[in-house]
């Protein structure tokens, strides 16, 4: 994965693909300090609308952020803006693909549409990112 130095309108961001497992969700729960049983307690989660555990939204967002770090390097850390909606849950066993495309470059500001889909093509996260360069 290499940092791109110049991205024009229409350019695709480097995709990031990850497979979600319950072990990864548990590890994130420990690191993130979020012990919501919806993520880690299969008995609790089975009784919810989801029928089973789901990944933290911030875990999925970390994958989107990895893509933006790969694309923009330190500029993402220093000037990044992100606005997303969580549209559907990521579940253990899902393979997630984060992708994005540059929609405008203006005055040193690069705007991208970003999303994360599962292996069925369902959009789990979508939104917009902006980086000043």
């Amino acid at each position, binding site marked *: *994965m290499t*940092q791109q130095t110049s991205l024009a309108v229409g350019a695709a961001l480097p995709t*990031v693909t*990850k497979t979600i497992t319950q072990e*990864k969700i548990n*590890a*994130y729960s*420990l*690191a*993130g*300090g*979020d012990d*919501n*049983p*919806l993520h880690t307690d299969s008995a*609790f989660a089975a009784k*919810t609308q989801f029928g089973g555990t789901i990944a*933290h*939204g*911030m*875990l999925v*967002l*970390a*994958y989107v*952020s*990895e*893509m933006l*770090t*790969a694309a923009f*390097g*330190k500029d*993402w*850390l*220093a*000037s*990044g*803006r*992100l*606005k*997303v*909606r*969580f549209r559907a849950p990521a579940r253990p066993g899902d393979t997630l693909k984060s992708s994005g495309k540059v929609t405008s470059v203006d005055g040193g500001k690069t705007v991208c549409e970003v999303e994360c889909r599962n292996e069925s093509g369902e959009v789990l996260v979508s939104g917009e990112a902006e980086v000043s360069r």
Partner: protein
Amino acid sequence: MTTLAALGKGYEFPPAAFDLSEEWVDAYVASVEDEAMVALDGGFVPPMAIAALAIRALLEHSSLPPGTLHAGQELAFTAPVRRGETLTVAARIASRGERAGWVLMGVELRVARDGVSVMTGRATLSFPVAEGAAA
């Protein structure tokens, strides 16, 4: 511990400080498998780690109702953060409403280093009305 469901619009969370220790950052990066941050020199902390720690700091004062969903997130980063630094987080409930049996709560976050903002954000959380006590 107070549940988030009992808090109303305008509530300000007690300010909290957190340390970005090497050990914690390593655990975070491993949990999210962030190869891009590993490849980026400089000892920087993944921006989402800052957001995660800020939210974690809030949860030390108020618990999430079981089954709380993360409906949306806005974040703005204004300076890179390095391992070993100490940050402070301030947060308030900026909005609270109900729709179709669910509470929608907007929580604004501001993370600072030595009083200078490094990240601002807004998390939109949702949980069943039955979990909420405050109007």
